[in-house]
């Protein structure tokens, strides 16, 4: 039995060395940061608005662009306000229920999804607002029809096409037309299954 134990430990060490040598080079992560680590401009924008209570700050790193993200709740709705590394406002995302999309837009979205997938199920929907700081600020406080911001919808769906089931992220414009479809690489679930 000593031999079994020795073999087991040797295998562990060898495999650990092997995976370290061939570790993935893709680098993408999001982590919590303290308020005093966030650019003053971003903090100023948040303070400029009405008091929202607790805000969680995150820093997002990837190959394309790094960003600070403030996550908060307003009237029980989840908001995510994204800033660049200098603290300039990029966009505001609001998580919402599909039923809250205007009927003609929702019909267009459903039509587009039916054309692209054999079957689909909407998992998550975010409405994305981008534009000038004045309009976005106005949107957070008292939205007005005269505000000029670009509206997009970002959906996470479970989709089936050509017999294959995957998670997808689909972006629509304000009219419900598809702008982009990308496959989401599912995270490894082995440690929850075995």
């Amino acid at each position, binding site marked *: 039995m000593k031999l079994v134990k020795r073999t087991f430990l040797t295998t562990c060490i060898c495999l650990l060395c092997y995976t370290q040598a061939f570790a993935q080079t893709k680098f993408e992560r999001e982590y919590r940061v303290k308020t005093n680590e966030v650019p003053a401009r971003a903090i100023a924008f948040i303070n400029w608005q009405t008091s929202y209570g607790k805000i969680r700050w995150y820093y997002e790193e990837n190959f394309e662009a790094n960003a600070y993200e403030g996550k908060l709740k307003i009237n029980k709705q989840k908001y995510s306000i994204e800033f660049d590394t200098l603290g300039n406002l990029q966009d505001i995302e609001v998580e919402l229920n599909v039923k809250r999309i205007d009927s003609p837009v929702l019909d267009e979205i459903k039509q587009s999804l039916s054309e692209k997938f054999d079957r689909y199920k909407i998992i998550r929907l975010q409405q994305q607002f981008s534009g000038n700081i004045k309009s976005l600020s106005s949107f957070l406080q008292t939205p007005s029809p005269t505000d000029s911001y670009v509206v997009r919808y970002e959906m996470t769906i479970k989709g089936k096409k050509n017999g294959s089931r995957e998670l997808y992220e689909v972006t629509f414009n304000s009219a419900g037309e598809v702008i982009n479809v990308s496959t989401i690489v599912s995270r*490894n679930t082995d440690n929850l299954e075995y």
Partner: protein
Amino acid sequence: MSQLLFRETPTTLSTKKLLILLFALSIRSALAQSTYLIGTLPSVNISTNLNENYGLNFKSEFRQIFAAGFMGDEPIFDHRYIHTDLSIMASRKVGTENKVAFGYLIRMREDGENLHRLTQQIALMSHINGLRLAHRIRTDETFHANGEPRFRLRYRAASDFALNGATIDPREFYIKLTNEYVNDWQGGNYSLEVRVTPLLGYAINDANKLEIGLDYRIGSVLKDINTNSFWAMINWYLKL
């Protein structure tokens, strides 16, 4: 009945003392009726995808006991190697993130008598506010030369969440919690075991994770004498 007694009889200091004493004695009695085991249960878990839908999982774990005895009594230290398990499971994707799997396990015991186990499972993945929650329903049948076959029906809920940020990213710590209920039938006898496992994990990357923690198991839940097992765990999950 005790609540009725409380209502009808004014609680004096002596009554309180008596109740505390009875409570303490009942706990002592319950503990005296329980056994415990303390040991280690490290495992290595290696998975690989054969193609888009099929995959294989290899697992090896071995057990050692460092202490055993009756709760409340002096421990009987008895360091002992118990067994080594080797298993293989073949899985098929049946949904976006759901899988069915079938497998075989061989348990090489200290006494040289090997056990053979067939396993079937379905794992269903759900997401609640960004939290991953996996439901696993598993059945297994265990056979060995000198004994009745053993049949088990198990349900496990498992979840993990990042200690920093919304998702578990490379080079981040995370917490994993599992809770499992194991129904066991052997030779006309039934027993239930409940397992609770809090683990601290570290993701080297998405395909390489280390976890350390405690696996607490209370067995014979519906019987007079409970068995309590405390297993120190180190799990290594590797996807090739």
